[in-house]
């Protein structure tokens, strides 16, 4: 914890968990999609479901899907911005089993028809925890610079990615690998000490078993 964690973050109110954290859930979903969102279905659970209007959780998530940051006053008008940019959204209240009180499932479709589904929770102070990306159970906190690599479960996939990172002098702080089944869809969540520039992200994406690369900056 540093001085700007306790006098900070600079954010749009009213709640670090229900507003700032919600913006981040939207931002990460948009980053994973990698293109402008044209359609979003947002399911809210627990305290998110009960208080979303008063806390502006709805505006916050839509703002995040538009790429608006947590300290940007346009969050307040994100619904209007969504309309003018052709983003259609729908909110639904749901009850999920064993979920954190501030949980949302965000399903988005982009201009190319590509879609992504994210289940994430806002766990306090603007911090978040992504528990599912598409069908894969994961754990992403985005407290570090985080690379999310979607790949096909093949021998050498992890080595190819970590080898490239090593050559670029990127130190891995934490890393986890998830897969749906043997030889199926898989995902690496890699937290690094250094920032990942777009050129490196492109290089990672060109590796053979890699299908998609998303880089998430820490809060």
């Amino acid at each position: 914890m540093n001085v700007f964690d306790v006098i900070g973050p600079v954010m749009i109110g009213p709640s670090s968990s229900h507003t700032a954290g919600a913006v981040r859930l939207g931002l990460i979903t948009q980053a994973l999609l990698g293109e402008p969102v044209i359609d979003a279905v947002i399911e809210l659970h627990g305290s998110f479901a009960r208080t979303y209007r008063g806390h502006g959780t709805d505006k916050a998530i839509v703002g995040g899907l538009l790429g608006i940051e947590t300290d940007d006053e346009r969050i307040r008008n994100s619904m209007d911005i969504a309309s003018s940019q052709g983003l259609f959204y729908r909110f639904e209240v749901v009850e999920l089993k064993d979920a954190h009180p501030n949980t949302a499932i965000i399903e988005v479709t982009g201009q190319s028809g590509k879609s992504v589904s994210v289940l994430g929770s806002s766990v306090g102070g603007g911090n978040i925890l992504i528990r599912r990306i598409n069908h894969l159970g994961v754990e992403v906190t985005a407290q570090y610079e985080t690379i999310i690599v979607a790949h096909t479960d093949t021998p050498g996939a992890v080595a190819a990615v970590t080898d490239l990172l090593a050559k670029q002098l990127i130190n891995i702080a934490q890393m986890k690998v998830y897969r749906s089944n043997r030889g199926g869809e898989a995902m690496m969540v890699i937290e690094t000490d250094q920032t990942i520039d777009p050129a490196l992200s492109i290089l990672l994406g060109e590796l053979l078993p890699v299908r998609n690369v998303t880089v998430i900056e820490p809060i």
Partner: protein
Amino acid sequence: MSNYKSVQVLIDEALAKEEPVFQIVLAGQVQEQALSKEELIAKMTETYGVMEAAMHNGLNSQTKSSSGISGGAAYTLNQAHKAGKTIGGDVLDKLLMRALAVSEVNACMGKIVAAPTAGSCGIVPAVLSTIKEEQEISQEQLVLSMFTAAGLGIVIANRATVSGAEGGCQAECGSAAAMAAGAVVEMVGGTPRMVGHACAMALKNVLGLVCDPVAGLVEIPCIKRNAIGAANALVAANLALAGVESVIPVDEVIDAMRSVGNSMASALKETAEGGLAATPTAQALASKIYAMQE
């Protein structure tokens, strides 16, 4: 270098080096964040700029929050102050209206600095800016004192908590007042020991304060608790500057806050199930707000 586990350690280090507390915090942050003192001060100055803008915007706004249950208190107080209808004097009025202003900006989805949380964001800026004006202190000195506030806040977060869901309002508005009290004491030239006593007294004043937000929103009673938190900070700072000491040492007060928070029922920790949130009026307001969402 302080590990931020104890306010007393911070104070002792300041005394040993014959430096203000902010210097100890700043030096520690240079190591931790790999930034220079100048960069850290520049970043904190920027942070204060956001606080100032929120105070200004909130004072001139009569906007209601999106739930409709709050808004316009800072403006109302400012008008009453100008008309001479209040009784606490200039300093108290300014302090209260600024704390209300920032907190109302927060409720209306404006830009604020969590200090330490969004729910308690009005206290530190209100106290520091008001006393800066009253005592003709430079902005640079104010910004430096924010490092003192932050150092105290980190210790409170480490030893106890600054989250209402974990410790009730004493952990949010109580911590903010403790941070503001210690910082303002140093800003006007108080000793490191006085910083510790001010911090301790502000926190002692609100031990046991519950977090009971109506409809779960950061509005009632949070906005007014920011005003009261700012006044609490001033009271504690005044006593400390006069040489009045907290008999219970500051670290023990923080530990007491943690244990009071632990023994508080969950209905009184941000769940909107107890306290003011459970009153008939609050329940009626909550039903109305939930109905808006259908």
